């Protein structure tokens, strides 16, 4: 159980790091190469990560009883 728990915490930290990196990229893109399309795409990548890993959208299609 501890191994599973540690793996779950690691996955959470990895997603958070991914979001932080994209946020940093957003900031520098806005300052150095302002592009609405690139900024919206970066936002979209972040949104997909949050919906998939933090909001667990896939649980909507899981068998009853599992979570």
């Amino acid at each position, binding site marked *: *159980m501890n191994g*599973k*728990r540690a793996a*779950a*915490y690691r996955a*959470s*930290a990895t*997603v*958070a790091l991914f*979001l*932080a990196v994209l*946020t940093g990229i*957003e*900031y520098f*893109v*806005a*300052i150095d190469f*302002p592009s*609405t399309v690139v*900024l*919206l795409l*970066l*936002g979209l990548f*972040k*949104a997909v990560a*949050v*919906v998939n*890993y*933090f*909001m*667990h*959208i896939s*649980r*909507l299609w899981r068998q*009853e*009883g*599992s*979570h």
Partner: protein
Amino acid sequence: MSAVTSAVPVAHHGHDAAHDTHGADHHEDNYAVAWRHNRLGLWLFFLSEAFLFGGLLATRFYLWQENGITTRPPLNQVVGLVVTVVLLISSFSMNLAETGLEHGDRKMFMRGLVVTAVLGLVFLFGVMIFEWGLFPSIHETELSPSKDVYGAVVFAMTGMHAIHVISGLVFIVLIWNLGRKGHFSQERHWGVEACAIYWHYVDLVWIFFYPAIYLIGTAIHH
């Protein structure tokens, strides 16, 4: 509201589990079915909210342009980045809290909730102080909701988002208080899951609001 605060899902099937003649297994099945229904209901609520926030985003892109060029108010981008990172870290701590409970780590669950609430407050006060200028002795701002379209839209977007941050904070406090009293377990924690995904939804909205308010377009100085 009871769906939010209770450790037991709301959508049950009209009978008292204690009197269920089919025993504990049937009771667990009912809980699982109710949990699934509640989850779907919450996502439908998010969908309805998306129209509200989508409308605000559309307003921003429609009104913030001059001579065909997309514009934005001259907000402090460092402040925007800092509050965004704070909200992002709060999503991480909320995920740790939920994951902790799912794996039987109650200490992580309770601590994660506290950290999330504190970071949520920091985000809220950051917006109130540096964007709304509610405390002029600390920071003054040129934006006003009635001055021009920039102030009006900034206040509409951040105000609507702030209402959701506040309701999320109330939700977290309720869940923390129930958790402190021993509610929720690895098997039964719909309230915690609802609270967590609601908070992540608040973060999700800000993921689109942040570039729309602070980054996209040419800063206009009046």
